């Protein structure tokens, strides 16, 4: 894919930029300590520890079944809704353990938004898709305020210009790429601090993928973004830091430029150069 016309910087730019941002250490937003996760008897994650910096894009890569999506879903306790799962270890957001007893999971999920692999808009109008999160979180306010928030959310997800004249139409009539951006807008509407993205572009064509990537790049100034991807080039293009998972373990976690140019683990090198995966 050509990157000449996009706002996304080349790998070299990323490397340079990461080096710069690495120099001025950004504060930690999410701190994970010795996290293990079990589906029934089966262990999916083994002692994962890493720190996710605020206002940066952190990518999780690794072969299918390596635990990267499971790990992502532990960060907003989405795995809670799967029966017979168990978590050991600690996940802290802004220093607060989100698995501590008494944690308000509903409020946690508002603060830590999520975009899924398969776009899943509600079978309602475009407007209602955005307004739902605002209403249930008591953020709807007056009608005009709600209208404003719907508009600003759609603008933040770079969708407003395409849908502003058909907000009352069904969200299911949008194209795949538009649906996924609607899901991003929906997540942004409730003003999260962290945005989790689980392979958000894996079902999209190259053009739509590019738009999502541009969006990710723009959004990181306001949000802490964690993105799971199968696509190594995508990780290289959009992320500041990259974590490599293999068989439920964290193999290596470093600046993206480091991971792709001078990995310290043999496994990482084999994976990013496409020797397996």
């Amino acid at each position, binding site marked *: 894919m050509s990157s000449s016309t996009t706002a996304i910087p080349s790998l070299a730019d990323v490397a340079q930029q990461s080096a710069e941002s690495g120099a001025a250490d950004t504060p930690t937003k999410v701190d994970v300590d010795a996290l293990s996760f079990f589906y029934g008897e089966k262990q999916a994650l083994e002692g994962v520890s890493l720190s996710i910096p605020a206002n940066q894009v952190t990518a999780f890569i690794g072969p299918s079944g390596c635990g990267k999506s499971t790990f992502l879903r532990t960060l907003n306790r989405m795995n809670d809704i799967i*029966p017979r799962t168990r978590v050991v270890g600690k996940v802290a957001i802004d220093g607060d353990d989100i698995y501590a007893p008494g944690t308000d999971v*509903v409020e946690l*999920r508002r603060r830590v*938004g999520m975009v899924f692999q398969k776009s899943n808009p*509600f079978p309602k109008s475009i407007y209602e898709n955005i307004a739902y999160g605002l209403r249930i979180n008591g953020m709807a306010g007056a009608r005009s305020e709600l209208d404003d928030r719907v508009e600003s959310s759609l603008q933040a997800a770079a969708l407003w210009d395409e849908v502003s004249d058909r907000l009352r139409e069904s969200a299911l009539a949008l194209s795949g790429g538009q649906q996924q951006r609607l899901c991003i807008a*929906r997540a942004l509407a409730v003003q999260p601090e962290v945005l989790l993205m689980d392979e958000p572009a894996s079902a999209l064509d190259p053009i739509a993928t590019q738009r999502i990537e541009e969006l990710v790049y723009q959004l990181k100034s306001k949000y802490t973004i964690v993105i799971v991807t199968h696509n190594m080039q995508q990780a290289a293009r959009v992320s500041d830091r990259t974590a490599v998972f293999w068989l439920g373990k964290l193999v290596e976690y470093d600046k993206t430029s480091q991971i792709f140019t001078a990995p310290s683990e043999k496994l990482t090198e084999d994976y990013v150069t496409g020797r397996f995966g």
Partner: protein
Amino acid sequence: MTRRLRNQLLDHLLHGAGMAATLLGLVVLGALLFDIFSDGLGRISWDFLTSFPSRRAENAGIYAALAGTVWVISFTALLAVPLGIGAAIFLEEYAARGGWSRVIEINIANLAGVPSVIYGLLGLGLLVRTLALGRSVIAGAATLALLVLPVVILSSREALRAVSPSLREASYALGATKWQTIWHQVLPVALPGMLTGMILALSRAIGETAPLITIGALTYVPFAPAGIWSPFTVLPIQVFNWVSRPQEAFLENAAAGIIVLLALLLAMNGAAAWLRDRFQQ
């Protein structure tokens, strides 16, 4: 004979046998309908629909039974639908999987297969006598509600289960509570499926005779129900009553009664299909 030829022959034979089975069912149904319509269509008139039963066949009408059926089925729906949906939501969304919920699930499935006369005996013992509801509309409706409840629960659960997990995840991920997710996202999507189940269940209830006779519904009622405490009769009982008369003319009334019952069923199923299409948009 080559293998190929034999397979072809077998294919044709099965095709023919399947078609014959289908046609047999259709022919029997067609003959039945023809018989009923040729006997009863002549009796269908405004007078027939608005007259009370009479000892003279030509004066007898279906009004009391029609009104009774409408009363009883309305209250059956009023009792069974909220209870059934509530139970389905609890079992599908809230109850922990395993142990007890398995036991409850198996029992509900079994209850759906219990003969209706058994529900009549339950209604007689519990509702008519112990709770002293008498042979009233409400006792009949409650008995039929018990009868259709398992079917309503099972079909509602089926509809809830068919809702895509990704829809629930989308809602939870926005910070929705379980109830908000169920009420705003899951139920609207499950509603068409639930409605179909309800109407099919009520269609079964509308044709039931045995449990209502068991609880003591009257067979000769020269009045329409005045309220839920009123005695009543229903269409199938009225038909049954007319069929058991020796005079030829009453058999015509019975056929006409069946036509009215069929029309009511058709209207209900039509309404279900219409509602389903409306909600699916």
